């Protein structure tokens, strides 16, 4: 009797011990999927949000974004702007790269120089500085050609590499497509200061990240030991992988599948507004539209026609039926998350189809006219469906839209500057990487100028010299109050000109397994520092 009892007790003890051991040894693994892969591990390889977002867990900038897209000190502890053309950064001490070497000012200078090498896609950021001086191992001075009030913000995606490691592995220049071996090592391997290290990398198939045990910031929340990242291209397959329990976090989820995720046990959708404005532009530059039945003149040069287009479209209906109520209708190209947003230009236009018809008649098109709308079908959330809805609404006031929906490769190959803006009307999305309205003013609302590159993505050629003058001033104004007032004035002008048909800030849409805690940042980046597994 006693023997059996003892036996039983010790068996229970052994089982308990076993369970404890298993618990301790069991690594917390996050299984994560996105619609594509990070293009490269080279931090200077491609200036694209998702690639940089994945890299931000491995590499770090001087100053980065926190969960609310506010600036937060990372490799620089403090920074100041003592003179208009000079910034000083005080670097964090005691930071080590994944291979154990120390982080110093030399690494910052090396990384800046590397960002200016031939294969780099971060030249634009690197070029913001004309020189970097090393004051001591942990202090640098950055000199700029012209006053730059937002340099720390503009450098949040300029990541710091280890100079010695790069030299050892012959990757002192950014990965280049032309010269095979240049920088190839950093394309597949990484050595940053971030909380995760690359353990396995099969591009497009599988990437495994391991926790960096000696990360400098002990205060980050995450309890993840290992991340297995698998890109899944097809939306339905991605959603299925979440529903079947094979994934913890997937992004994005088609908005129409939210109900399904809500009803399914063990998973839920996670949504919020992204800082990406979706809008429709009209060719106002040519004297005759390329794709229209109106000959000899360009109807979009007439402000009444542009107003008619804007008044014909009901943003709330698009939001309700196509975006399932998750988008934020916009009155300009500036989503609320952006620095400089103001309600005065942010309120959507009031739809008024009757007025639109009247305006068209006044402008000399009582029976409307025909025009082609270029649209991508795999770039933005429900892009093709949004275009179809807009086409339907314009048809109701008499503007017959021929919709040309194509894959992004063909679409961008047609409408962008390189192809000579081959479009009469187009749907485009824009995220200002610096989360600041000036970026959108420069790229979307400035007159096109080949020399200064202003208005590079102003595909319709909207042009108002007043906006240009304000844009230039905003670029070098260091007083935040004055700066925001000028941003407001500029966007009010664009709005009064009916320069664009703004649609909405599109929703971010992730699928998350219950119990997994993640923070959804407004630039659609998953920062692994914030992920907590059950």
């Amino acid at each position: 009797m006693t023997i059996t009892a003892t036996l039983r007790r010790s068996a229970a003890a052994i089982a308990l011990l076993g369970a404890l051991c298993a618990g301790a040894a069991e690594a917390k693994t996050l299984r994560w999927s996105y619609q594509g892969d990070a293009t490269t591990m080279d931090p200077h390889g491609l200036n694209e949000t998702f690639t940089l977002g994945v890299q931000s867990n491995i590499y770090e900038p001087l100053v980065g974004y926190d969960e609310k897209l506010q600036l937060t000190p990372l490799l620089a502890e403090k920074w100041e702007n003592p003179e208009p053309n000079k910034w000083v950064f005080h670097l964090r001490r005691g930071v080590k790269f994944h291979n154990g070497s120390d982080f110093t000012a030399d690494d910052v200078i090396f990384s800046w120089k590397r960002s200016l090498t031939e294969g780099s896609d971060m030249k634009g950021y690197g070029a913001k500085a004309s020189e970097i001086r090393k004051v001591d191992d942990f202090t640098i001075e950055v000199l700029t050609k012209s006053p730059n009030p937002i340099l720390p913000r503009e450098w949040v995606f300029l990541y710091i590499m280890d100079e010695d490691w790069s030299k050892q592995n012959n990757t002192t220049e950014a990965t280049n497509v032309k010269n095979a071996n240049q920088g190839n090592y950093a394309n597949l391997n990484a050595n940053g200061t971030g909380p995760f290290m690359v353990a396995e990398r099969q591009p497009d198939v599988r990437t495994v990240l391991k926790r960096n045990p000696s990360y400098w910031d002990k205060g980050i929340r995450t309890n993840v030991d290992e991340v297995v990242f698998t890109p899944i291209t097809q939306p339905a397959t991605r959603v299925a992988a979440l529903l079947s329990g094979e994934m913890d976090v997937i992004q994005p989820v088609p908005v129409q599948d939210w109900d399904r995720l809500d009803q399914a046990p063990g998973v839920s959708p996670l949504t919020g507004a992204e800082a990406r404005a979706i809008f429709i532009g009209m060719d106002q530059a040519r004297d005759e539209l390329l794709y229209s039945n109106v000959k000899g003149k360009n109807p979009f040069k007439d402000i009444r026609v542009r107003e008619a287009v804007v008044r014909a479209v009901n943003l709330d209906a698009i939001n309700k039926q196509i975006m399932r109520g998750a988008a934020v209708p916009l009155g300009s190209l500036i989503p609320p998350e952006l620095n400089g947003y103001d309600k005065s230009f942010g309120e959507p236009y009031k739809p008024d189809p009757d007025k639109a018809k009247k305006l068209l008649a006044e402008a000399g098109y009582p029976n409307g006219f025909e025009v082609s709308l270029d649209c991508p079908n795999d770039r933005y959330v429900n892009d093709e469906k949004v275009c179809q809805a807009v086409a339907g609404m314009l048809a109701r006031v008499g503007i017959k839209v021929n919709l040309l929906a194509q894959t992004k490769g063909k679409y961008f190959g047609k409408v962008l500057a390189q192809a000579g803006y081959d479009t009469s009307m187009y749907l485009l999305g824009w995220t200002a990487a610096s989360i600041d309205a000036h970026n959108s003013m420069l790229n979307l609302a400035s007159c096109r100028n080949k020399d200064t590159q202003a208005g590079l993505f102003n595909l319709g050629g909207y042009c108002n010299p007043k906006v240009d003058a304000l844009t230039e001033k905003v670029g070098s104004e260091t007083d935040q109050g004055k700066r925001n007032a000028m941003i407001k004035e500029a966007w009010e002008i664009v709005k009064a000109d009916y320069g664009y048909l703004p649609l909405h800030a599109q929703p971010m849409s992730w699928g998350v397994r219950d119990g997994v805690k993640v923070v959804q940042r407004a630039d659609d980046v998953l920062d692994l520092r914030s992920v907590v597994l059950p």
Partner: protein
Amino acid sequence: MAEIQAETRGRLASLADSDLWHSFKGSPVTIASALVALLLVLGALLAPVVAPHNPFDLASLDIMAANLPPVWAEGGDPAYPLGTDDQGRDVLSAILYGARISLLVGFASVLLSILIGVSLGLVSGYVGGRLDAVIMRVADVQLSFPAILIALLIDGAARGLLPRDLHESLALYVLVFAIGFSGWVQYARTVRGATMVESRKEYVQAAQIIGIGPATILRRHILPNVMGPVLVIATIHLAIAIITEATLSFLGVGVPPTSPSLGTLIRFGNEYLFSGQWWISIFPGVVLVLLVLSVNLLGDWLRDALNPRLR
């Protein structure tokens, strides 16, 4: 000339002869297929008359009536018997109009493929030698390109060559040409193989000896004997052509999304399978299956009935 006409009339008469009719009457499956096919083709042809709405008229779409379920489900609207899609299009009308486009593209491109493929296959298999080698290597080149890429090329070239205004109106023809042109190789290779076998047979040799010209031999003796496999491929090919068209429109090459075909409707609806709006893809899918099934069953029957050796 008169001889040929007499001959044709004679053939037509024998077609209408009781033999064929008899075998048709004797097969209930065939009758059912014929009825279904007839119904679908008629529905498609008469779409503007019988459809409750015109789904291609953008101005008539009401986006606030989007995603309505079929009339018998909760929340259904009698104005839209099979529900509406994400744009507020009536699914029933969209199916009727869509079937029209799918049938047109399907039949026209299959005919084009057969025309090119069978002629080249016959010549290649009968003449042999260098000509055969050239045709077959061209076929290899052709086969190495997924149909979708060939269509992209043809579409791109058409866009480059044709004036801008014509793109929209010619989109359908470009599509037929692209799909038809990418499908001929199977016919050519199959017909060539069969022709090589047939042309060694005694009856062909006999015809050669009595001095009948190669064109006549090919047309009158070899062609009827190699048509069995061609019909098998053609019936299945019709399905592929319709589905290829759907895939192409996905790449922005096909018909504009504002006037969707049956395949395009399924492709749109596919995105709503998980979210519960099953009617957007399932109804067009069922119609497509019925269409392909009935065409294939008719094809089977026709093949067996027309081939004297199988009776």
